């Protein structure tokens, strides 16, 4: 029988709206406004999870995003199920389904709980130490380790939700809408700044909004009701945008921030369809005000992790904001005044408090006096030494602290309870500040790290800056904002503040026990089960750096990133090692502050939008004619055109044969085209290509090879001289952008004196290449008025002409070794000219061919493909292309490097042809080449770069790189494969038509 622990109507909860939800398969009810955590607590459910390593029962511990324990699996279906969601952050809706993680068969009875009893043999570094030997057993260990590791299950089918990215620019960004954030937002917006206020919760006002105690007053109203009026006011300001349910994930340099806006997670599933689920906000702010508040610290004592143990501030929040009592017999344990605030609020709501255990001796505080007046038993100078109850706390034992706080004295007192609130003071949330590059300083008097130096135009205010009490916050905020925003008045200069808070605190990082440390389980990191004992062990084993201790013990490495316990880990290390905390420093705070979904990160860039792709003007024709496509850079290029269920091999053989026997047609539009103009264009080409360009006649084309300054082949292509000072350069498809970039670099930075202008015109033209013995006949039909005689239009020249009224440029250049014509037309005419060629070529069996056939045809001729046959370690000499390297030119890019001792070596890998002993055997590209198996290790001489079966030569041909291959002509080599060795002979890389007769056939 579950109890109803709803105490008193809260204005934040809509009790008229009942919400039903399922937890671990059972149906419960809560109200609109509840979080999953508050609704479970109202049903008296504390046990919600099992811990990671020891599988100890764990309950809800906090009321916010810092929650280490209550992380659950959300949704049942395979596409939306989401692991590691904090129950303290989920707003409940009708039909919500959540379940516990890391337990089997159930959270109530978990087999893994045996780890708890094995804990003496599961110390820090257990895995490192145990599974090292024998090394060959690792695979077996791994299976079990993987099985026991990880929390929750990831979805197994695609995410149906929509995510998006949005850029926001603002003058002032305020992170956190607690009292400081609200005040800052009002001041900034009222002073004309375009202001953005971001809050991770669904309401504004932070911890102050539910404060209605007489002890905290502003202008004679309770701080809660004063703040409520301020919030109502800022909601009306036009230049202030407020985003709730939005969590800042990362704070980068130059005030660039990423935030996740949750849009539909609080809605019933059926209301989410078609709506964007989450949005990644990319915010660029001129000024940032961080008002992220602070997190209450736990206290570290034996068995401080049982269900029913919460932060004292969380108990206060559940009672005041959600109207839920976390227990019927409550005890508070504290080292500062905060717990008495909780006590006062619980008392007011009629929730009983059995006792307050205070580390401190006698303190003069109005808050304590009120608790005493309310007849709450206060144990001053005491500490808890142990707690009892397996699945829910039922008892604590306390002892008196010695004067120095190092040990316990006197006798044990047992006090029964069902809920324990702990308060160890407050830790400023400096995560985002340090992510931005800010440096912290340590404040000794209350043991906190606070912001010290700012790397950008930003400021931290309120409790994240170490101002914990209302009077401190309010007295500093006006001055800080005036300075930061450069304004004269904030309107908050004369606030009247009353507060009863006494700031004294007795900080003991690890509370003493009557047991020795080795016998205690005092948890520092609740999610990862790292205890004080583990940290001490790490130190004993020689770890000193906080970063090393963290990784060895896994302290702070859970999904909560140790938001609660990291300070205690530091404190314990500091105490043992004797170094000051300020000198130890903190571990690095890394984004995101709270976990992000992959969906948010990816946004709309999924499926076909993952990357843009480029289509040629003839793309639709290729699709219609059943082409298979391959990706070349961002281009979709026709790969081959299978006919009647042809295999790729068959299609390529047919296409290759047709291109040499009659005619082939290729879409070459993707080749990069750079328009080069200027009086120094020829000189420029002289400097960037290895061969000479000054004497190229107008109307002629020339093949050029481009090197990097290190002498390695970078790109190649044909460049045409259109006019005295006008060239058009073609580049490889993939190299177009980088070649242009490189040429611009040289022009602007090394040779600014040259009068040369570069423009990319790749997309402006469609390029249709018609090749083969019948190509001349086909072109003569397509362009009847063009004189195609070899005298008028020889190989390596171009003509400007017209097809009907369409201007076109025809180049007689060849990448196949066949006579061929390349027609360039304005892109939008590409498809119609292509179709014209197909029509004219029909009687000659014109055959469209794709990139694969193109590769085969050029391999028959021994033409290289930059990027396939080269890999940025090949000089033109290695490629046996000495003919293209000018000896006369004084300089060109990469020339000097061709004369380095290394590039001049004779035994470099050089391009050769390879012929297999069995002419039907096709080599595998990438296969290794060796000469001798007798020497061990076997020396790899090189590898195969291109390999095909040539239908025109009726044999297998290949290109490859072989060490010293230039001088190995005719030599036998071996290609070792997985299950055989293939014998090959080194050959001339030009396999077909060495005399280039076919060009003019």
């Amino acid at each position, binding site marked *: 029988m579950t109890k109803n622990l709803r105490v008193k109507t809260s204005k934040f909860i809509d009790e008229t709206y009942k919400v039903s939800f399922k937890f671990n398969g059972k149906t419960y009810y809560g109200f609109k406004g509840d979080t999953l955590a508050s609704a479970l607590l109202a049903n008296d459910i504390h046990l919600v999870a099992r811990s990671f390593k020891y599988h100890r029962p764990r309950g809800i511990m906090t009321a916010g995003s810092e929650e280490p324990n209550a992380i659950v699996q959300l949704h049942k279906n395979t596409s939306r199920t989401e692991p590691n969601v904090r129950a303290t952050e989920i707003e409940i809706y009708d039909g919500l389904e959540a379940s516990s993680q890391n337990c089997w068969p159930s959270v109530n009875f978990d087999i893994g709980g045996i780890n708890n009893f094995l804990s003496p043999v599961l110390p820090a570094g257990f895995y490192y130490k145990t599974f090292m030997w024998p090394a060959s057993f690792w695979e077996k260990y791994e299976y079990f380790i993987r099985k026991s590791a990880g929390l929750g299950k990831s979805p197994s089918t695609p995410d149906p939700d929509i995510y998006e990215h949005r850029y926001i620019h603002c003058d002032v960004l305020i992170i956190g809408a607690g009292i400081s954030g609200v005040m800052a937002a009002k001041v900034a917006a009222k002073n004309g700044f375009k202001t953005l206020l971001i809050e991770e919760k669904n309401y504004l006002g932070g911890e102050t909004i539910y404060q209605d105690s007489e002890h905290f007053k502003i202008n004679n109203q309770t701080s809660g009701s004063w703040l409520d009026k301020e919030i109502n006011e800022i909601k009306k300001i036009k230049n202030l945008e407020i985003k709730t349910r939005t969590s800042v994930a990362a704070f980068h*340099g*130059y005030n*660039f921030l990423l935030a996740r806006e949750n849009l539909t997670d609080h809605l019933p599933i059926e209301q989410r369809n078609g709506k964007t689920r989450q949005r990644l906000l990319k915010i660029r702010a001129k000024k940032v005000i961080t008002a992220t508040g602070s997190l209450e610290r736990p206290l570290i004592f034996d068995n401080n992790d049982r269900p029913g143990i919460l932060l004292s501030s969380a108990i206060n929040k559940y009672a005041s904001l959600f109207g839920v009592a976390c227990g019927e017999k409550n005890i508070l344990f504290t080292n500062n005044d905060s717990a008495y605030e909780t006590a006062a609020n619980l008392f007011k709501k009629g929730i009983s408090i059995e006792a307050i255990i205070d580390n401190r001796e006698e303190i003069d505080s109005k808050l304590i006096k009120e608790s005493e007046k309310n007849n709450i038993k206060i144990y001053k100078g005491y500490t808890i030494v142990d707690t009892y109850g397996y699945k829910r706390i039922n008892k604590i034992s306390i002892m008196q602290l010695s004067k120095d706080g190092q040990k316990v004295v006197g006798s044990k007192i047992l006090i029964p309870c069902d809920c324990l609130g702990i308060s160890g003071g407050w830790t400023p949330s400096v995560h985002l500040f340090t992510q931005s590059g800010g440096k912290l300083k340590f404040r000794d008097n209350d043991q906190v790290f606070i912001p010290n130096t700012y790397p950008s135009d930003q400021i931290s205010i309120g409790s994240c800056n170490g101002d914990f009490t209302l009077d401190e916050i309010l007295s500093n905020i006006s001055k800080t904002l005036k300075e930061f925003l450069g304004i004269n008045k904030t309107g908050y200069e004369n606030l009247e503040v009353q507060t009863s808070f006494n700031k004294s605190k007795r900080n003991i990082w690890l509370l003493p026990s009557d047991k020795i440390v080795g016998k205690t389980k005092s948890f520092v990191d609740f999610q990862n089960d790292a205890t004080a004992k583990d940290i001490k062990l790490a130190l004993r084993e020689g770890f000193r750096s906080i970063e090393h201790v963290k990784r060895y013990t896994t302290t702070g490495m859970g999904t909560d990133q140790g938001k609660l316990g990291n300070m205690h880990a530091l404190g314990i290390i500091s105490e043992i090692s004797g170094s000051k905390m300020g000198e130890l420093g903190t571990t690095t705070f890394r984004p995101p502050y709270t976990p992000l979904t992959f969906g948010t990160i990816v946004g709309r860039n999924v499926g076909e939008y993952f990357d843009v792709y480029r289509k040629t003007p003839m793309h639709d024709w290729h699709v219609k004619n059943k082409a298979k496509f391959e990706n070349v850079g961002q281009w979709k290029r026709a790969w081959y055109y299978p006919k009647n269920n042809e295999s790729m091999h068959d299609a390529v053989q047919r296409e290759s044969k047709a291109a040499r026997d009659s005619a082939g047609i290729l879409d070459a539009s993707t080749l990069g085209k750079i328009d080069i103009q200027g009086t120094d264009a020829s000189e420029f080409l002289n400097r960037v290509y290895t061969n000479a360009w000054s004497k190229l006649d107008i109307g002629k084309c020339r093949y050029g090879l481009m090197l990097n300054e290190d002498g390695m082949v970078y790109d190649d292509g044909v460049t045409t001289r259109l006019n005295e000072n006008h060239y058009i350069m073609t580049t490889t498809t993939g190299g177009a952008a980088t070649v242009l970039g490189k040429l611009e*670099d040289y022009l602007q930075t090394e040779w600014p004196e040259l009068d040369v202008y570069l423009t990319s015109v790749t997309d402006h033209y469609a390029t249709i290449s018609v090749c083969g013995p019948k190509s001349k006949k086909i072109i003569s039909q397509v362009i009847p008025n063009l004189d195609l005689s070899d005298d008028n239009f020889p190989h390596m020249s171009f003509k400007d002409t017209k097809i009907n009224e369409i201007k076109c440029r025809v180049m007689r250049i060849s990448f196949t070794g066949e006579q061929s014509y390349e027609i360039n037309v304005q892109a939008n005419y590409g498809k119609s000219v292509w179709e014209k060629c197909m029509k004219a070529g029909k009687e000659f069996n014109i055959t469209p061919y794709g990139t694969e056939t193109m590769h085969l045809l050029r391999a028959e001729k021994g033409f290289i493909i930059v990027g396939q046959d080269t890999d940025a370690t090949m000089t033109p000499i290695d490629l046996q292309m000495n003919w293209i390297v000018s000896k006369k030119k004084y*300089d060109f890019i990469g020339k000097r*490097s061709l004369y380095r001792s290394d590039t001049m070596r004779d035994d470099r890998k050089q391009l050769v042809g390879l012929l297999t002993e069995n002419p039907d055997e096709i080599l595998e590209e990438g296969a290794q080449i060796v000469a001798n198996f007798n020497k061990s290790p076997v020396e790899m001489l090189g590898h195969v770069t291109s390999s095909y079966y040539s239908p025109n030569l009726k044999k297998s041909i290949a290109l490859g790189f072989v060490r010293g291959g230039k001088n190995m002509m005719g030599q036998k080599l071996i290609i070792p494969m997985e299950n055989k060795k293939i014998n090959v002979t080194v050959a001339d890389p030009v396999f077909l038509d060495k005399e280039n007769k076919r060009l003019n056939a």
Partner: protein
Amino acid sequence: MFIIHCPYCGEREQSEFKAGGEAHISRPKQPSELSDDQWAEYLFMRKNIKGVQYERWVHTHGCRKWFNIIRDTSNDQIQAVYKMGEKPPIK
């Protein structure tokens, strides 16, 4: 992600630019007269310091112009931006 003040376009996001390594290394006017060591020095040796560094950048997705910046690599603060061929405004 920092913001760079392109001397031709003004303030733009870093993602519009590409870094081009250390600045003020001129290509030798007469490469053929250099020893292998001297050529290697020009070709391969670049500084990569923590602190103030002179760098080349290009506004790839903008005006395509190259320019120099002075950047503190430890905190990405850009101390100056100046055009190619100009002397660094600060030492």
